[in-house]
């Protein structure tokens, strides 16, 4: 009987305001792929960050090679043979590919970095993916496209020759062919006796790769399988209830109204010849791989990274905005995907966050608590209606859970009653109930006549919540589907494996 390469027992971890992990146990054996599944915010990444020493655990034990270890620094985990491909890129954009791959452990000769050896070694590792020809070791990472960056991220972990490799959604940015290369690599590593922890939202990958599956839900172990069960079983364990009533009912034809936004042959550096329409009362989901240009499209409409060509109309008026402020004035709202970086003003109160846009559009010398759009009391009422859970709305928003933060940003836009509301990754890092809450909220808004554009990488969410689905690939709109399309069809369109007629 072989002993596990790593074993985590009864791990607990809290962040201010969030109990991210509640007594989770997990293990991985040499030569196996252990899939870790769970919804956004279930705690998968947190569990792995504890394993890799990024976070310190609050309780429980980590056992590596039969010995209990308490990593207080990632270096110790690396030394113990644990490598991680992080979900958020952990690359330094200003440094070269080779420098990133060998970050902190550059090959040296006589104490000096051996750049030649480093580049050669980087090339060798990259060659494992068949991408050596595409990615030069001395290219600066900022000059690479998103998929290549993801490959560098993977190469960084693989080059460590670790006993345990954690892959946190490694294929999110890869196309089909690149995915296959990665899967081949996983097989090779497995044969070499490496223990692999594989986090993904794609059932297909679990079926293809995994030997065992653990499902996390709300920071707890929801299920553990010593085999690979049917996808439905996994999903049920993840979500904990029938998906049916999870999403709100779709729009009826009567509810769909006038054209709100019309984009014709628009484009910019990242977008090519985009044409589509959004109507009042409908929720349109935008699907695609990472880097397909969905966010770029949203930002172009919002005037943040404007279109350089084509025509855009909002409710019949020209609307090629060049900055967000104009777009907001005209009635467009946007909920950014990266809440922390682009949405929240973390040190301010919940109510300040809700009132931000209302204040931004009011006179600078106007009373802060009585803007023409909403007063402080009205905002508090709105926050109550949205069921934002906070000790008090004058507390710093930093301490709130992700879902509640998200709702506060929604409130920000509701106060302005926009014509078009763009949600980017609306439920990222949000628990199940809050998620359902957001879906119903979106539907309620649509019913009131708002057009909703939803950009999401969570395919089931797009399928479940949208009335219509547009698929993007490489900066272009490549397909349009009605509600009820299968996950496979969308994926195929997104990866470009097969031409799909609109």
């Amino acid at each position, binding site marked *: 009987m072989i002993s596990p390469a790593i074993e985590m027992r009864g791990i607990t971890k809290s962040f201010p305001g969030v109990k991210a992990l509640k007594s989770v146990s997990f293990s991985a054996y040499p030569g196996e792929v252990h899939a870790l599944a769970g919804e956004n915010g279930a705690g998968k990444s947190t569990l792995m960050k504890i394993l890799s020493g990024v976070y310190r655990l609050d309780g429980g034990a980590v056992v590596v090679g039969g010995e209990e270890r308490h990593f207080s620094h990632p270096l110790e985990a690396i030394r113990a043979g644990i490598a991680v491909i992080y979900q958020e890129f952990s690359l330094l954009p200003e440094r070269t590919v080779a420098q990133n791959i060998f970050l902190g452990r*550059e090959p040296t000769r006589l104490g000096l970095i051996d750049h030649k050896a480093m580049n050669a070694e980087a090339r060798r590792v990259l060659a494992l993916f068949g991408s050596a020809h595409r990615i030069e070791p001395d290219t600066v990472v900022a000059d690479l496209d998103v998929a290549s960056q993801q490959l560098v991220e993977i190469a960084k972990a693989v080059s460590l020759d670790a006993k345990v490799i954690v892959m946190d959604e490694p294929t999110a940015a890869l196309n089909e062919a690149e995915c296959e290369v990665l899967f081949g690599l996983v097989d090779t590593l497995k044969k070499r006796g490496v223990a692999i922890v594989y986090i993904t939202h794609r059932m297909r990958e679990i079926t293809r790769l995994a030997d065992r599956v653990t499902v996390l839900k709300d920071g707890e172990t929801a299920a553990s399988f010593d085999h690979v069960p049917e996808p439905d079983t996994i999903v049920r364990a993840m979500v904990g209830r029938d998906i049916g009533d999870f999403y709100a009912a779709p729009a009826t034809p009567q509810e769909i109204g006038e054209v709100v936004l019309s984009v014709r042959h628009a484009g910019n550096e990242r977008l090519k010849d985009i044409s589509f329409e959004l109507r009042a009362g409908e929720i349109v989901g935008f699907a695609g791989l990472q880097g397909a240009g969905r966010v770029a499209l949203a930002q172009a409409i919002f005037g943040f990274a404007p279109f350089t060509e084509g025509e855009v109309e909002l409710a019949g008026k020209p609307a090629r905005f060049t900055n967000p402020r104009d777009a907001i004035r005209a009635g467009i709202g946007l909920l950014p995907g990266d809440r922390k970086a682009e949405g929240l003003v973390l040190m301010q109160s919940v109510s300040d966050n809700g009132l931000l846009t209302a204040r931004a559009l009011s006179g600078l010398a106007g009373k802060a608590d009585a803007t023409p759009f909403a007063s402080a009391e009205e905002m508090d009422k709105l926050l109550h209606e949205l069921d934002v859970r906070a000790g008090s709305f004058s507390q710093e928003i930093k301490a709130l859970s992700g879902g509640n933060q998200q709702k506060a940003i929604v409130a920000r836009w509701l106060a302005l009653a926009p014509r078009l509301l763009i949600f980017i990754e609306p439920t990222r890092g949000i628990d199940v109930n809050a998620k359902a809450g957001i879906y119903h909220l979106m539907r309620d808004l649509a019913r009131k006549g708002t057009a909703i554009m939803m950009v999401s990488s969570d395919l089931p969410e797009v399928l479940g919540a949208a009335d219509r689905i547009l698929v993007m690939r490489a900066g272009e709109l490549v397909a349009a589907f009605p509600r009820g399309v299968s996950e496979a069809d969308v994926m195929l369109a997104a990866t470009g494996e097969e031409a799909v007629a609109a």
Partner: protein
Amino acid sequence: MNTATLTKRPAWRMERYAPALLLAAALAIYIAIALSLGHTRFLTPEAAVSILNRSIALGITAVGQTFAILVGSIDLSVAHLISASAVVSSAIMNGDPAMMVPAVLAVLLMGAVVGTLNGLLITKLEVNPLIATLGMALIIQGCLASFHGRFGGSVPDAFQYFAYGEVLGLPVSLIVLALLVLAAWAVLRFTRFGSNIYSVGGNRDTARAAGIKTARVVMASHIICSLCASLAGLYLASRLKSGSPWIGTEGAYDLESIAVVVIGGTILSGGKGGIWGTVAGVIIFSLIDSIFNLAGVDAFAKQVMRGIIIVAAVAFYAVRSKRIVA
């Protein structure tokens, strides 16, 4: 092969050449003015050496400051440390050549201690580097002033070799600065530590996740910065024969070294830049000084222009960036 993403073409990175462009511009202006005024004497190799020789102290300090800024920190205590080093060294030497080695060691030790304290404040107590080093500056100033009066002394003639000696027609101090620059370049380019400085400056969390002991890197950078300041203090003591307690502040080495580093293309938030930019920045400063002297600009007009030049030079890089600064 199917590429799902738009590949971004490698941009022509203007920033990489900006210090060279700025330097070339300064040089062109200098030459133009020298020619138009008929001062061809100022275009000889000796003149070049004398221009370079203008900014040895600033150069040494700026080399250290480059480390502090690259790692994402900053050091406002260098000016006071320079004063302290000059005063302490001349007090210890007190004209006695035998005390040269102990004095140098004592001063470098002092630099190391100050750097360590700065580093500890910033990494362990998480004090904003501006405040930590500003506080340290005040503390040094106080200590210096309280010992003042009891300190006199001067450096022995032998020690003045550092500032006034020549080897093969080149000033010793210039050679020292050149070696220091080369060493700094080698450290940043060829050692793991140098690479770690860029990583920590670029993104502390990423660096930590990759197994880099970030606190140590920050600390070491601050120690290097302080050691350089101490060396600059020694140089000034040697050049001025004795150390006066306002030597560092009157030269405004704190703000000037930061300005020079930033003009050299190292960004204030860290992780990007390098020593050659700093060298260009230092030479630009010397050239500006020489141009002003050549053209006979009066001291106040000089100041006005110097302020504008600093901002304009930094704007030259920054205006193209999309980053929101404050």
